[in-house]
């Protein structure tokens, strides 16, 4: 007897999801049990039946979640709001300065007349 891990696809295009496992003496019976356990109500359109012994696993947190700052690898690692506000303020100030200069130039012309 050996343990088989079962993965199921519930809808077209979806990733295979782990469904559970079962014990069977051989592959043929494992397929039969998988069908009975994981698609009795038509909830799967595809099943993968994989001997547990063939699954390689990594759980070492030093590999998976190293204790170093890697915030530059996630969107939240970038705080752009202040920089964005600063850029917008500068653009607004420049637009206002241009409008002011135009008004002043128009005033000077009127004053000359």
């Amino acid at each position: 007897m050996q343990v088989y891990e079962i993965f199921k696809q519930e809808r077209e295009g979806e990733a295979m999801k782990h469904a559970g496992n079962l014990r069977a003496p051989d592959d043929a019976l494992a397929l039969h049990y998988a069908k009975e356990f994981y698609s009795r109500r038509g909830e799967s359109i595809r099943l993968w039946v994989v001997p547990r012994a063939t699954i390689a696993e990594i759980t070492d947190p030093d590999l998976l979640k190293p204790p170093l700052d890697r915030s530059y690898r996630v969107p939240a690692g970038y705080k752009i709001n202040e920089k964005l506000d600063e850029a917008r303020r500068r653009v607004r100030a420049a637009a206002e300065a241009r409008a002011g200069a135009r008004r002043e130039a128009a005033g000077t012309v009127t004053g000359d007349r």
Partner: protein
Amino acid sequence: MATEVLHQTDQGEAERRAAFFAHIAAGGKVEATDWMPDDYRRQVLKFVEMHANSELMGVLPEREWILRAPTLKRKLALTAKVQDEVGHAQLLYRVAEDLGKSREEMWRDLLAGKTKFHNVFHYPTETWGDVGIIAWLIDAAAIVAQQALRGSSYGPYARTMQKICWEESVHIMHGRDIVLTLVNGTPKQRAMVQDALDRWWAPIMQMHGFRTPPEKDKDLAWRIKAKSNEELRQEFLAIYVPRILEIGLTIPDPELRYDEEAKRWRYTEPDWDELTRVVTGHGPKSAERLQFRQIHYADTAWVRDVILGEGPGALAAD
């Protein structure tokens, strides 16, 4: 269940084909182990292979700036981006391999200039401003296309896009942060990033490809991709033109404007001859970048020999 059509073997070839394309047209998905007509398989392969090539070649312009990054954090972020993109190439070559072409063959065809990669990776990177513009706007143009590809009829490709899009969203933040830092900097830094935008705008406008009429686009008819080239370009412009302008940059196209009546962006006709020339290997950096890959491929042959168990190292172990 709709996927049954992919497993019925008791019908004629023509019937089976018709059932397959009806399945696709109705929004159905295809998996690597499903039956599929050869022309569909070839078309998906060609599309994914070009995408994989682009990820792989796309790191070369940015890689040149790792040693010149202005701070340690920028260097880490840029190195991580380059690693991500090479990782995307690995994922996509894997998807393509399942469609019947070996990775070695795909590499050989790329190195021989027989297969293509995206136009934007044939151009030089002149300044640090280019690094910001590439990570922000080229990755943004790419993500618009890749988000649409999550609706691809080829399931393994569509799912790969979910992971890729998530990582690309980090690259866009990294790029936007570089650009914002530069525009908030000295006048010289502002001029540098404006100069980068001026040089990259034309290639960016060409990037989504010709305005092929949707009805003539086989990739679209077979839902290998979910949106037409022009739809993608319009989507990119709608999101990014306001974001570029609000920070004081100027877009080098006097014709660019939103046409309220037609509900679409108008722009100067991109130079399609340039696009054709560049993607067929006649861009300013095409030869140099391919040569870099060729040298690198030869240099690393021993690694493949050892891992694949075909080289002298493997014989010695026997």
